[in-house]
């Protein structure tokens, strides 16, 4: 149920020039919204580099500019209301703390938290706030604000829908969805404590029609997801495929001597690396990257075990004896990274 301040101001019988706020108060509300939008824009911009998944990267990249335009529109409205242009102001310390929490997840493995914070909590709240404001602004003397709200509502609807598509794609397991829900609950509690972006309470959330298409721009999140999909089969010479498989099988079985037979004299399987792999209790392997360097091939092999996973970077060369690895590097061992 919506809080009382968001009830429709212009009920039948109310004078058409009746308003819900003074010009000064309206300017404050705009500064409050601008605070959220500007911080969100900077946060999205900063996260692009910290986010591994291409679909999420492109999503954030597309929305930074819309957020910047929203902040700009709000900021330009301020002098029209006797206030300084392009100023942001948090409604209260609790809302600033909520935004601090939104920004928190910076690790590569926290894409879910990043997206959930923005696309399941912050943007839906802003959308609901804009819609509530649009219902109550005076239609005679506040059309400049109305137009800004209408533009932001249209964009935010699309952003939220696109975000949900990408989150749905990335939440590939029940465990990830649990994580997403836990993070969402934490942020929603902080938002409630702050009483929303303006400090006036939480407006009723907006219902979104998931089937609504993206009408204007090529910002279809399904396309971002498509661009992220890796190949189902690597275009690898058959002999190389056999060599990589035999090498990785030997590693899995702990037979370092057999594994070494697939190396050239320039490569070495260090004892430390062999031990680190053995400690994972490896069970399976798969190729996750294949890059060409002239006639050579760089192959990333992911080793998965009961105690975690590791990433091996290898470089293969075609020799008289067949394909052999001339470089071997244990790029990453992550005990927490299970298949």
């Amino acid at each position, binding site marked *: 149920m919506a809080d009382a301040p968001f009830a429709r101001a212009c009920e039948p019988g109310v004078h058409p020039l009746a308003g819900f706020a003074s010009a000064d108060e309206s300017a404050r509300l705009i500064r409050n919204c601008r605070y959220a939008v500007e911080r969100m*824009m*900077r946060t999205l911009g900063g996260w692009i*580099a910290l986010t591994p998944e*291409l679909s999420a*990267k492109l999503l954030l990249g597309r929305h930074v500019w819309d957020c*910047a335009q929203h902040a700009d529109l709000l900021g330009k409205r301020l002098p029209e209301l006797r206030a300084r242009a392009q100023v942001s102001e948090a409604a209260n310390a609790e809302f600033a703390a909520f935004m601090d929490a939104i920004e928190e997840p910076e690790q590569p493995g926290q894409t879910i938290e990043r997206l959930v914070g923005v696309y399941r909590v912050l943007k839906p709240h802003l959308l609901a706030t804009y819609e509530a404001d649009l219902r109550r602004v005076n239609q005679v003397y506040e059309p400049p604000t109305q137009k800004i709200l209408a533009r932001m509502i249209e964009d935010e609807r699309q952003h939220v829908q696109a975000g949900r598509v990408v989150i749905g794609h990335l939440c590939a397991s029940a465990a990830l969805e649990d994580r997403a829900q836990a993070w969402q609950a934490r942020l929603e509690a902080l938002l409630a404590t702050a009483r929303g972006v303006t400090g006036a309470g939480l407006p009723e959330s907006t219902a979104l029609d998931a089937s609504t298409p993206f009408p204007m721009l*090529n910002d279809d999140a399904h396309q971002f997801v498509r661009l992220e999909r890796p190949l189902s089969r690597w275009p690898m010479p058959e002999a190389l495929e056999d060599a990589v498989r035999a090498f990785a099988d030997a590693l899995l079985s702990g037979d370092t001597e057999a594994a070494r037979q697939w190396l050239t004299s320039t490569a070495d399987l260090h004892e430390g690396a062999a031990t680190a792999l053995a400690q994972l209790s490896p069970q399976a392997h798969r190729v996750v990257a294949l890059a060409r*360097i002239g006639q050579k091939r760089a192959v*990333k092999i992911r080793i998965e075990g009961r105690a975690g996973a590791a990433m091996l970077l290898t470089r293969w060369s075609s020799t008289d004896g067949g394909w052999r690895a001339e470089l071997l590097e244990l790029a990453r061992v992550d005990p927490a990274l299970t298949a």
Partner: protein
Amino acid sequence: MERPIAYDKLAREDRFVRMRARDVAQLKVEQGLPPFPDLTSRESIKERVHGIMVGELQAMEGAGRTVCDFPDAPWEFTMDMARQVWDESRHVDIYIRLLEHLGGYVGEFPETTILWRCACAEDAAARVAGVNRGLEGLACDVFNQMVHIARKIGDPILERAVDFVLADEITHVRMGSKWLTRLTEGDPERRRRAVEFQESIDERFNLGGARRDGDHDAVPISIAREARELGGFTGEEIERLIKTTQRSQVY
């Protein structure tokens, strides 16, 4: 949020193989290949397109960091950088589709992080000088040449798509020219450092000497004088760039 971030925090999906540009070039030279794709075959165009795709990705990430890292910079500067993020995100999309058009896939060639490292400069003026003027200027040269080659080999998909990206790049160079001047107004020392940074990039990244002054058909990658002038380069700056191409490093 941490501001700025260390360059090694750049996050990638597993399907990317990251290598130093120097190592990739050396491995290719050892195999009797040119250190950089020379655009003389469809395969080399594909490799070049892949390199541009990861460059666009890093340009998007770099511009995003600039939006994030400099909250006290002029608001119009932030707006320009935010716009650039959007442009670069479209470029990534375009180049992935061009890569598919050429029969390639994301991750088919190693990724080098030259552009990203430049985008991690601590000073905003150095970032716009190095990335927007140095590297996006280089992009103007390469894209201009690619449009010419696409026309020559009869590939209208490549020609039209790259032509539009080139238009965006000129805009980004222009932004770089504008903000290099505005951010360093009244601070000649800051300007000198930023320009030096840009010139070091111009000198180092001449694509193994492939970038030169001359007609499209006479040199591997022709310096795009007109595009650079539209982006705010002076005649003197273009002449200086031409001189640097004559003493370029291998990569």
